[in-house]
């Protein structure tokens, strides 16, 4: 490389310029929605606005040719700087490691983008899938099968409910958190409420008796006794059907909200290869299943259909490079700044 080019690409001025451009472009990309449907862009920015945005690559900033060009220029800048330092035998090893580590991370990113596969896979309990759906609705074969044995949804606290009370003649609104068998006087009114029964999945059987289909809170309902002096009324209230009311005393309205929250969703998966079960694992968020370079992540579920699971399937050969780069980057930067005698000098 001619000296002039080396000088240009090894200058910190160039690095500062490139960093500034990349920072500004990244900021723009967070304020313009990225990769949404053309119609949504047209709704937001008009037809001409959308045309301009897509011409400038602003609908997908981080994958636009110019953003990648600036990253590449930064990479060349880093490389020439590092090589220059090695050639001139000046500068500390930690500086060189730090700057090369960023090149390693960027090359890992390229490997991921070029050779990585990712997509989604949906399974019902008992179903075996041997392919996943990648971008553009393309089916990619796995070369083995994955069967969903069981999908499990766990809640933190099933018996946790909120009742919003409105008493008309006092124009009083109160919200109380209640539990089964609890007794709750409603402040500022003559009413009090006793929670008689909680039913997670309410239905009426043929004898018109309230029953639950399962322990899954698909249709949470509460039976409450409303007390006022000598009067008493038992009333069903429903979390999913607030408008449905069996009220006799129209002076008091109750709105029920089931407060349980999801603790975890898990899928028990079995890898099937050559007609045989090879491996069984229960996966959840933060605990994927790995087999033959593919990773299966718990990514989705359907609260209305609890025999179904949504998996993210990924094969990413760039991860190793990226992680190696991360380790070197952290070591390099810690050494640069904490082995620095300057920090220990007096102010």
């Amino acid at each position, binding site marked *: 490389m001619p000296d002039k080019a080396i000088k240009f690409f090894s200058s*910190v*001025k160039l*690095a*500062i310029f490139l*960093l*500034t451009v*990349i*920072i500004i472009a*990244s*900021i723009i*990309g*967070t*304020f313009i929605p*990225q990769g949404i449907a053309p119609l949504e862009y047209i709704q937001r920015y008009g037809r001409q606005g959308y045309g301009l945005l897509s011409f400038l690559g602003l609908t997908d900033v*981080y994958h636009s040719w110019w953003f990648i060009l600036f990253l590449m220029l930064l990479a060349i800048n880093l490389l020439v700087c590092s090589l220059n330092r090695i050639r001139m035998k000046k500068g500390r090893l930690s500086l060189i490691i730090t700057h090369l580590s960023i090149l390693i991370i960027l090359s890992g*990113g390229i490997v991921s983008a070029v050779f990585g596969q*990712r997509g989604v896979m949906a399974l019902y309990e008992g179903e075996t899938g041997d392919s996943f759906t990648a971008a553009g609705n393309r089916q990619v074969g796995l070369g083995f099968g994955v069967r969903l044995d069981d999908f499990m949804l766990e809640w*933190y*606290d099933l018996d946790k409910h909120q009742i919003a009370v409105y008493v008309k003649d006092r124009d009083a609104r109160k919200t109380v958190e209640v539990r089964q068998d609890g007794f709750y006087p409603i402040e500022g009114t003559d009413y009090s409420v006793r929670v008689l029964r909680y039913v997670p999945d309410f239905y009426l059987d043929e004898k018109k008796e309230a029953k639950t289909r399962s322990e899954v809170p698909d249709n949470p309902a509460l039976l409450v006794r409303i007390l006022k002096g000598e009067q008493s009324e038992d009333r069903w209230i429903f979390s999913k059907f607030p408008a449905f009311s069996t009220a006799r005393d129209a002076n008091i309205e109750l709105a029920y909200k089931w407060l349980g*929250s*999801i*603790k*975890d*969703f898990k899928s028990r998966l079995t890898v099937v290869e050559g007609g045989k079960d090879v491996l069984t694992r229960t996966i*959840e*968020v*933060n605990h*994927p299943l790995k087999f033959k370079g593919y*990773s299966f*992540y718990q*990514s989705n579920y359907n609260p209305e259909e609890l025999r179904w699971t949504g998996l*993210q*399937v*990924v094969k*990413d050969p760039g*991860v190793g490079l*990226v*992680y190696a780069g*991360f380790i070197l*980057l*952290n070591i390099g*930067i*810690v050494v640069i*700044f*904490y082995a*620095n005698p*300057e*920090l*220990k000098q*007096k*102010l």
Partner: protein
Amino acid sequence: MNLTLINLSLGAYVLACILYFVYINFKSSLCAKAASLVFVLGFVFNTVAVAQRWHVSGHPPFVNLYESLVFFAWSIVLVYLIAEFAYKFKVLGAAASLLAVLCLGYASLLDRTIQPLLPALQSNWIVIHVITYFLGYGSVTVAFAASVIYLAISKKKSQDNLAGRLDTLSYRLIAFAFPFLTVGLTTGAVWANIAWGSYWSWDPKETWSLITWLIYALYLHARIVRGWQGRKAAYLSVIGFLAVLFTFVGVNFFLSGLHSYT
């Protein structure tokens, strides 16, 4: 978090702030000593409050805005106290304690109920990811305070010595923060890969944390290699802090994405 502990901590920070201001205006060394003592005491209460919340809730106490602000105050005060003891420099005390008061004061207006941990947050990575980030953020926040005071006084000839020390301190705090920001950023990417199968997806929170990291990388290159000092460096430090603020709270208010907690 135990209300009494937080209130004791907030009270101590308010008192420390007043004492630091008195010290700056009247150069009373007794006040300076008392200010440091009260600030340390407030920090102890803050520490116990965080530890207690961790114990009671059974998960790391930084999963909503209330908990994050209490921990942010803790980080600011920790970094400031380290700097104060290391450099025997107390002029920033008033600003640091004021920032801590603002954090705890704002936190006290928020919902403090302990919330159950979302599936995505049930990971040990949360501990290193969040603690390193908060120490980094705490440090650049104190650096920001130093830069703002620098900008306010740097034009006065009589304050040359003090301004120079503030400028240097701001730089050192950013240098101290940068490794923490790096560990925070990279552990975040590793965690995202383990949870969702992608170490980088240009989610707004991810992107903004990268923007913040790049701004401080730019600061360090400009300062160390190009010799930027004084006002230019101070402006960059202010911009960096604004980016931190936007990453920390702004993204959740203005943009939507995966990182929808805290």
